[in-house]
């Protein structure tokens, strides 16, 4: 298989504009003849479904939540980047492009990232027009803050609830189209498989989570906007329902999966408090604008924070990265926290935590100002830990947060399966090996509002379409497979709960394929995962029936997919014998302990093709061609 990224030729800054002119259009009167299936209703899915319906396409949108407003984009706190240069501090499309490529450790495509930076400004315009209440200055104009990995203030925000407000904007646009009859919404409905006819994606098989009914939906294109796979680690900042099933099912139907080992560990999360923990909670990166990260200089220093004098504190980010300080990128900050804790200088229970201290900021700008900036985050911290962070420093520790890997897509955001488009976190395209803060919201909305609506027209106009029907044999066959699998979970009647398998898998991955990875550990994981999977299919216990609302059964299907997907993740981490961004192989580091890339051998996208159950997947390599920038060692010193 040859993976063609279809990056347009010509100068970087004109690629998208020229491509837009070259793409074929669908006549407005013909658009209503095309049915588009959108799976997922987060920022990418809702913005795509709304925009496609506005253009005149007939859209069906699916989500497993009880309402499209609940997708996990809603939990994004800090902000959204855009190259508006409203602050007159030297920002530009080029600088946002450069920061994103560098932040991604030179493992993203130049063409895609430049386009992302170009459309970023329009996103802010669109959201403001929808009524998104971004923070403003007294003059009535928009406010900005800084985020990690950038030296300009380009992040727009709505208190600590930016994702919520952007998602509600997209949800409202989607709701308007539902009300107008242009989108048919299917909440509490989970996609369980993809259906191909003559090699083209033509529909999906879903389960109604309330009645248990399995049914098919046919369309002229399928758009997956189903988010990331961070929950393969069991504990992550993702919502409980986030899962890999839609993208993994597509993988098993022939879509190649790119860079699964690129996972982002976010440096500022509330530490784990015990085995009962069901998820981890992020404390926005924006806190690092005012908070200072430190640990005691002495090992095993058990004194309360306020008794440790200034001279005995190690503000390690400021020390190691003076020019970016506490705003060093996420991968670097996370590893630095791990290093400090591994060195025995961690704080809190189990020594797995570092301080994020606001005492200086409160002295500098006063407590009310800090309260206005981050009040809801401090409240959330207090609810979870019972501690008041205005008085004592927060304790934070890194946690799985985002996955840069995803289904492979070309410049059209289409996978190698014709008619299967993948947008938002579910694809791999823009963040390379590490995503910068406030860029996920930007990418999700860029894909949904401004990129997919163009490229999907090009697909419709340049491919002769045959209408598929949901009662065709291809659909019935997949429906039958889905039913068999669903009933199989119930028939096993073993001894262990679904959660116990998920927890064990998650711990294994966190230990062997988390913040630091090495060959021996990855090989060990690759031996243990199949054994755990084998036990799952022999010994899992799922109660209840398939013909009703059964949350345990839903979870069983997701965990079964994680148990296969985890192997792909570890395999990808094993073959990438270099360190880059969120992928840190301990064998490959500089003398100062920084990630050591190997551009000569690894400047490619690894794209894995399914070869059958119990067969190793096949690796394809898409070389990363840099026309504009020179790959260089990332430095934030």
């Amino acid at each position: 298989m040859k993976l063609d990224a279809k990056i347009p030729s010509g100068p970087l800054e004109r690629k998208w504009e020229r491509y837009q002119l070259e793409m074929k259009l669908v006549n407005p009167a013909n658009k209503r003849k095309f049915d588009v299936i959108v799976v997922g209703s987060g920022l990418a899915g809702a913005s795509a479904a709304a925009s496609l319906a506005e253009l005149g396409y007939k859209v069906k949108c699916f989500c497993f939540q009880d309402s499209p407003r609940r997708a996990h984009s809603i939990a994004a706190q800090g902000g959204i980047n855009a190259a508006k240069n409203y602050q007159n501090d030297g920002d530009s499309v080029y600088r946002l492009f450069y920061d994103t490529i560098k932040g991604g450790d030179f493992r993203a495509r130049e063409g895609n990232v430049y386009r992302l930076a170009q459309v970023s400004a329009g996103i802010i315009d669109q959201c403001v027009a929808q009524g998104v209440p971004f923070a403003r200055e007294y003059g009535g104009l928009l406010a900005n803050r800084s985020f990690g990995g950038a030296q300009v203030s380009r992040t727009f925000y709505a208190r600590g609830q930016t994702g919520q407000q952007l998602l509600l904007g997209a949800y409202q646009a989607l709701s308007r189209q539902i009300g107008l009859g242009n989108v048919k919404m299917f909440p509490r409905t989970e996609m369980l498989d993809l259906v191909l006819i003559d090699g083209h994606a033509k529909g999906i098989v879903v389960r109604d989570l309330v009645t248990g009914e399995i049914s098919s939906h046919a369309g002229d294109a399928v758009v997956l906007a189903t988010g990331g796979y961070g929950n393969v680690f069991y504990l992550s900042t993702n919502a409980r329902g986030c899962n890999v099933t839609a993208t993994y099912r597509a993988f098993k139907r022939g879509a190649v999966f790119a860079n699964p080992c690129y996972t982002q560990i976010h440096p500022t999360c509330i530490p784990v408090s015990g085995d009962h923990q069901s998820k981890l909670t992020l404390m926005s990166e924006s806190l690092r604008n005012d908070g200072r990260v430190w640990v005691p200089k002495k090992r095993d220093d058990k004194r309360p924070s306020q008794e440790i004098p200034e001279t005995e504190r190690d503000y390690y980010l400021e020390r190691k990265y003076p020019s970016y300080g506490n705003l060093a990128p996420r991968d670097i900050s996370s590893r630095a926290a791990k290093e400090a804790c591994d060195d025995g200088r961690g704080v809190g229970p189990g020594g797995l935590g570092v301080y994020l201290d606001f005492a200086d900021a409160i002295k500098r700008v006063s407590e009310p100002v800090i309260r206005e900036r981050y009040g809801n985050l401090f409240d959330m911290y207090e609810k979870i830990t019972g501690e008041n962070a205005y008085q004592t420093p927060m304790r934070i520790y890194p946690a799985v947060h985002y996955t840069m890997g995803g289904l492979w897509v070309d410049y059209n955001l289409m996978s190698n399966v014709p008619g299967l488009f993948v947008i938002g976190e579910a694809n791999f395209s823009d963040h390379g090996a590490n995503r910068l803060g406030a860029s996920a919201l930007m990418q999700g909305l860029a894909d949904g509002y401004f990129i997919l609506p163009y490229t999907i027209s090009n697909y419709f106009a340049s491919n002769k379409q045959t209408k598929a029907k949901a009662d065709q044999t291809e659909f019935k066959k997949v429906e039958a497979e889905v039913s068999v699998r669903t009933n199989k979970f119930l028939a096993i009647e073993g001894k262990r709960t679904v959660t116990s398998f998920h927890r064990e898998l998650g711990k294994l991955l966190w230990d062997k394929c988390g913040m630091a990875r090495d060959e021996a550990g990855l090989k060990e994981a690759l031996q243990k995962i199949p054994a755990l999977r084998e036990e799952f299919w022999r010994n899992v216990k799922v109660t209840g029936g398939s013909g009703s609302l059964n949350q345990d059964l839903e979870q069983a299907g997701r965990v079964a997919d994680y148990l296969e997907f985890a192997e792909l993740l570890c395999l990808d981490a094993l073959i990438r014998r270099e360190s880059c961004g969120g992928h840190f192989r301990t064998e490959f580091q500089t003398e100062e302990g920084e990630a050591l890339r190997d551009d000569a051998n690894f400047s490619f996208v690894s794209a894995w093709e399914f070869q059958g159950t119990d067969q190793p997947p096949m690796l394809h390599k898409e070389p990363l061609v840099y026309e504009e920038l020179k790959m260089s060692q990332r430095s934030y010193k």
Partner: protein
Amino acid sequence: MNLTLRVWRQKNAHTPGEFREYEATGIVPDMSFLEMLDVVNEGLIARGGEPIAFDSDCREGICGTCSLVINGIPHGGQRGTTACQLHMRHFKDGDRITIEPWRARAFPVLRDLVVDRSPFDRIVQSGGFVSVNTGQAVDANCLPVPKDDSDLAMDAAQCIGCGACVAACKNASAMLFVAAKVSHLNLLPQGKAEKDRRALNMVKAMDEAGFGNCSVTGSCEAVCPKEISLDFIARMNRDYAAALLKGKFHAKAQAAGG
């Protein structure tokens, strides 16, 4: 600590439900309320029983999915806190805790503690938006919005759509939810053009969905996890009344052949 739970169990929307008792043992203060239920469910599954169905997703208080009435109070009575953010340190060893679903005619129970809140979506579909297609926007800074207006709009926009306001209200009224959305958009210049239509249409959709009327008891505000103020209901009533009045003038103008 050890607790006794009295939990509403119901097979589906068509079968009557009942309270059943469960022992929750080995609960630690750092657990969230939902993590405590996870522990109970793990035990139930291990014994071959069916776990208690309840909705949750983000578990950090923002998605609005969780929906439990705990000891008679939606979300459990900690100010500004959703059930997923309520921690067991607020309970004592030996406590007896009653857990029910949202109870409102417009929110039928689907199973156990899971209810159908789709009427909220239908209300938003009737007018909870600004009619602007993708690509039609002007530069974001060409229309200054006074900070006070923007902040007040944000106070309203924070609503997470959980439905606690309905569950707390003796009339099962959705006024706080609807008022929050109407106010959020009507306060901003971008929402002004559709101000009247929005208030009229959303109130109509609310009534049609079977929610009760508002008798200003304020219980909605008291349980709202985002502490959305009752003032927004007054603001919506004003917008609604103004829209009704203006509607009358339109009708006359048209009757006169205008």
